[in-house]
């Protein structure tokens, strides 16, 4: 039997581009640090931080908190931003760090309409461009770029390491593999509740909480995203913009629309074996009903999920304990709008 033909994808240098609002970052940072700790792989962090908070995807929380305008953003105090910046530096030691400022927002055309949608894209662009700034200055390029939010955990804890191992030199002449050596590949997770509640089976659906871009994929993604970011010169909502628009239910899952327009090969993250790392070169397992297999699950962490508003020590839970938390508390309350 001949040897398997392998892709030329080798992952030794990884950039983790963190973006958006810090929110419950304190409760997540220890878990995130452990999540990206992988022997033999260099991981650098690039951090863009927003100086405000929004909650427009949380209708029950907004109702309880008396937030009536769902576009409203609450500016954080300078002390809070300073504190969050320090926490980020202490936890991740970022190679590049930048605060996304709102001081010139009045200059941006149609910014009121853009707060819900296009400002999400602005966070992605800033974090990925921080990485490119470092690449240009040092003449290094990253094999894999990950986008991740400060307030998001990804279950199970070996998901990053396992998928990196499965991507590296994966066989391209067999079933159940990524049959590509294209260093322009995206792995993402759909937002299941949007698919379920909107019957949008074929709608491009991929969320921004946690995704992989091999090679140049996320660079290309944010170049296109920049066509939809609030501008000082042209409104995002002019008639002329309509010829390049997307079908979008929620901007947070616009990743898949952008990837489709840019013809970036895209796949959902593979199912992985529960409790075991790198089980041997079968990225796309054939039997999703196999009880050993599990989907990778990114989820936002919010204190309101728990009755006492206190987030438990998630970083020191086992995968099984975390799964119980997800099934009984996190999932129902997240999907319920808390």
């Amino acid at each position, binding site marked *: 039997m001949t040897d398997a033909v392998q892709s*030329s994808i080798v992952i030794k240098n990884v950039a983790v581009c963190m973006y958006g609002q810090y929110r419950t970052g304190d409760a997540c940072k220890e878990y995130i640090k452990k999540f990206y700790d992988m022997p033999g792989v260099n991981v650098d962090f690039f951090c863009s931080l927003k100086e405000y908070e929004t909650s427009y995807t949380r209708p029950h929380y907004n109702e309880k908190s008396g937030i009536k305008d769902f576009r409203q953003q609450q500016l954080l105090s300078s002390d809070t931003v300073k504190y969050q910046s320090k926490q980020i530096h202490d936890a991740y030691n970022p190679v590049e760090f930048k605060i996304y400022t709102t001081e010139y927002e009045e200059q941006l055309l149609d910014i009121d309409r853009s707060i819900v949608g296009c400002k999400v894209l602005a966070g992605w662009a800033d974090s990925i*461009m921080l990485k490119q*700034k470092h690449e*240009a200055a040092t003449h290094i390029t990253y094999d894999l770029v990950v986008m991740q939010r400060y307030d998001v955990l990804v279950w199970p804890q070996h998901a990053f390491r396992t998928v990196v191992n499965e991507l590296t030199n994966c066989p391209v002449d067999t079933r159940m593999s990524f049959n590509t050596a294209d*260093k322009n590949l995206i792995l993402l997770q759909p937002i299941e509740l949007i698919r379920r509640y909107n019957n949008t089976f074929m709608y491009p659906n991929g969320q921004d909480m946690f995704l992989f871009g091999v090679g140049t994929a996320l660079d290309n993604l944010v170049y296109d995203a920049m066509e939809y*970011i609030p*501008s*000082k010169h042209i409104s995002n909502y002019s008639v002329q913009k309509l010829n390049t628009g997307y079908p979008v239910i929620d901007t947070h899952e616009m990743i898949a629309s952008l990837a489709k327009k*840019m*013809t970036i090969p895209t796949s959902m993250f593979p199912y992985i074996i529960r409790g075991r790392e790198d089980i041997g070169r079968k990225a796309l397992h054939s039997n999703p009903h196999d009880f050993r297999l599990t989907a990778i699950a990114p989820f936002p962490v919010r204190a309101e999920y728990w009755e006492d508003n206190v987030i438990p020590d998630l970083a020191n839970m086992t995968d099984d304990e975390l799964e119980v938390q997800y099934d009984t508390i996190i999932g129902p309350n997240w999907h319920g709008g808390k």
Partner: protein
Amino acid sequence: MILLSIVATEEAIPTAPGHWDTFISTQCGSDGWDQYEHSLFGNFKAHWQNGVDMYTKFGQHELANNSCTVCASTGDFDFSKLLEKFNTLPNSAIIFDKLRYPEYSWEHVPQPWPIPTAFVTSYSSFMKLVTLWKWIDGYKNEPAVLERDTAHEILVRTMWQRNLQYTELESFT
């Protein structure tokens, strides 16, 4: 806003026009990718470095929404005709000075195809195109993957793949 991206070579030290913000990088060399003749790799890498510098200086809200035009060249170039034509196109399109040469020509034609050295487009489309150098660079661990490729083919293939609309100033019949 118009920004100028210039690739400087030893033969062509540009004199930047004073009325546009100008970014100059030195041609980076082929770095072993000699099949991409006429310096596609080296020129695009230098343009990409200029593009990152543009973002660092101006930020996304100046460059967003196709509101920023980038004029790219190697050395001095008069962009007036390209800009005049660009203003009649969708602002995400790329207009080259010369993208291709006629099949039959009296003038010397580098073989197999020349790579355009002057073009105008929006910031987003500029970066989508010139980041091609980095995709090529990703194969340095296995260069045989690209050994049969050519500069013109990868250029056109990339524009098709990235959904970039393009045209040229000079047409041949």
